[in-house]
């Protein structure tokens, strides 16, 4: 039994490493999708978010999400304390395994910590190219400290959604829709990038500066998702983990096809950025149901997510005039909701569409309103948007006194934009 415990624990740790890579994936995806003048800024935010996220989750988030007692208040709001170091260790592996435990407390913390930081990262792409650095970091800290853990506790920490048998395997709602709706709130408060919506009613295309970075980001996210979904089995159980690998991969693949088809129908071209987002949509879509559907259902879930992506992106971008440079609201928000509902449609087991709908709406509404509140307060206090002149010259020079791609060679000269 010691061996069983060890292999289960090892998988959680390997999965942790894979989820960590998702932060690189997000960093590259977002860097690729922003303009050249804002690249340092987005990289800076990504490097800080994983760091702040882990520390905050250690100091506050973890205990809030997995409250150790279950009194009334704790059940709703959890409580506030750092991760209890003495809970990390398992005394007797064989006994623990016998008792159904699959990993140490340290493993649990670090695996969950990577998730928490992921959720904050989702917001950073949507608000790119115009948000002030420090206010954003404050928001991210509060988000990981309170909003994410409270939502997580509802579904995974023994809260009311868990009691209702709401099913969200690895977090279509609890992570992705939460991040997506928080992003939506932030974008609404922030407004579109300067020049995005013209006075003639048209929408200006603002192409990302590097498709190789964006593509790399998506491949790395898929790579990391094997840990995100596979690790959410919370053991190395062969059937469960391998099933999740298959459903996750098939959904991602089908997401690419769905986006390929729909974007061709809409735009009459083969749009790489849509196919990349389609893969992510498929991954987000399968995340809630990855362990309770067949391969065929996984393909369908992913394919539909892929179809949704171009429609949703265009709807936000052109019709609702909500400016989200990386499509986080569509990928994580809309596909997160779809994935949660898909459990109610395709899930093999005792799942209720109504509960799924209720759960995802509750999560979305809470993430949205609480983010709106926090971001709104920050906006009132110190402002959240860079000045117009800083936006024109770019946040790299404005916030970081730096270019992403230096033009200086041997002291010859250095270019400034405007």
């Amino acid at each position, binding site marked *: 039994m010691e061996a069983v415990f060890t292999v289960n624990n090892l998988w959680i740790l390997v999965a942790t490493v894979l989820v960590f890579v998702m932060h690189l994936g997000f960093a590259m995806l977002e860097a690729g999708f922003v303009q050249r003048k804002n690249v340092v800024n987005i990289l800076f935010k990504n490097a800080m978010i994983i760091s702040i996220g882990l520390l905050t989750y250690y100091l506050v988030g973890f205990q809030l999400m997995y409250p150790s007692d279950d009194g009334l208040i704790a059940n709703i709001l959890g409580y506030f304390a750092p991760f209890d170091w003495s809970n990390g260790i398992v005394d007797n592996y064989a006994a623990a395994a016998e008792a159904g435990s699959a990993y140490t407390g340290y493993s649990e913390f670090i695996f969950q910590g990577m998730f928490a930081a992921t959720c904050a990262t989702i917001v950073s792409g949507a608000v790119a190219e115009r948000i002030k650095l420090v206010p954003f970091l404050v928001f991210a800290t509060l988000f990981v400290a309170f909003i994410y853990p409270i939502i997580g506790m509802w579904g995974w920490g023994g809260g009311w959604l868990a009691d209702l048998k709401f099913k969200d395997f690895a977090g279509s709602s609890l992570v992705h829709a939460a991040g997506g709706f928080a992003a939506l709130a932030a974008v609404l408060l922030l407004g579109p990038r300067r020049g995005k919506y013209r006075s003639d009613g048209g929408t200006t295309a603002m192409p990302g500066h590097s498709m190789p970075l964006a593509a790399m980001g998506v491949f790395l996210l898929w790579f990391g998702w094997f840990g995100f979904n596979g690790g959410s089995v919370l053991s190395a159980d062969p059937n469960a983990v391998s099933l999740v690998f298959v459903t996750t991969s098939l959904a991602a693949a089908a997401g690419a096809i769905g986006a390929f088809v729909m974007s061709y129908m809409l735009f009459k071209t083969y749009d790489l950025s849509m196919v990349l987002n389609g893969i992510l949509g498929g991954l987000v879509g399968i995340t809630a149901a990855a362990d309770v559907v067949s391969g065929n259902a996984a393909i369908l879930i992913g394919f539909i997510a892929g179809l949704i992506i171009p429609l949703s992106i265009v709807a936000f971008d052109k019709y609702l005039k909500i400016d989200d440079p990386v499509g986080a609201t569509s990928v994580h928000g809309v596909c997160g909701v779809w994935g949660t509902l898909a459990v109610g449609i395709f899930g093999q087991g005792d799942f209720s569409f109504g509960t799924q709908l209720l759960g995802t709406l509750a999560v979305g509404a809470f993430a949205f309103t609480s983010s709106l509140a926090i971001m709104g307060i920050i906006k009132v206090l110190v402002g959240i948007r860079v000045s117009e002149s800083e936006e024109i010259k770019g946040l790299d020079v404005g916030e970081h006194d730096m270019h992403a791609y*230096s033009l200086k060679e041997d002291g010859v*000269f*250095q*270019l400034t934009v*405007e």
Partner: protein
Amino acid sequence: MKKIEAIIRLSRFEAIREALAEIDVRFFTLSEVKGFGLQRGETLTYRGSVYDADYIARLQLDILCPNDKVKAIVDIIISAGRTGNVGDGKITVIDVDQVVRIRNGEADESAL
């Protein structure tokens, strides 16, 4: 014929282009240049070393036109390109001996 060379701000380019189109000047050649003048570049920092980016990105607009259009074009660029801040740029007018259209060898005014 004249060649008008205008050094302008990147951010005024769209406005100038639209203004020129209104007086039917739709053909020109653009190049990316670096300007050094009264307006100074940003101060940058790299690993603790501070340095000036003395140069400022500018666009150079080259417009070939008949003599009688010069004044109109210059006026349009001044009004559409002005922000009033130091660094708005310069317009230069140079005399041209000859212009030929490569496509068909047409010369001078008919080549424009």
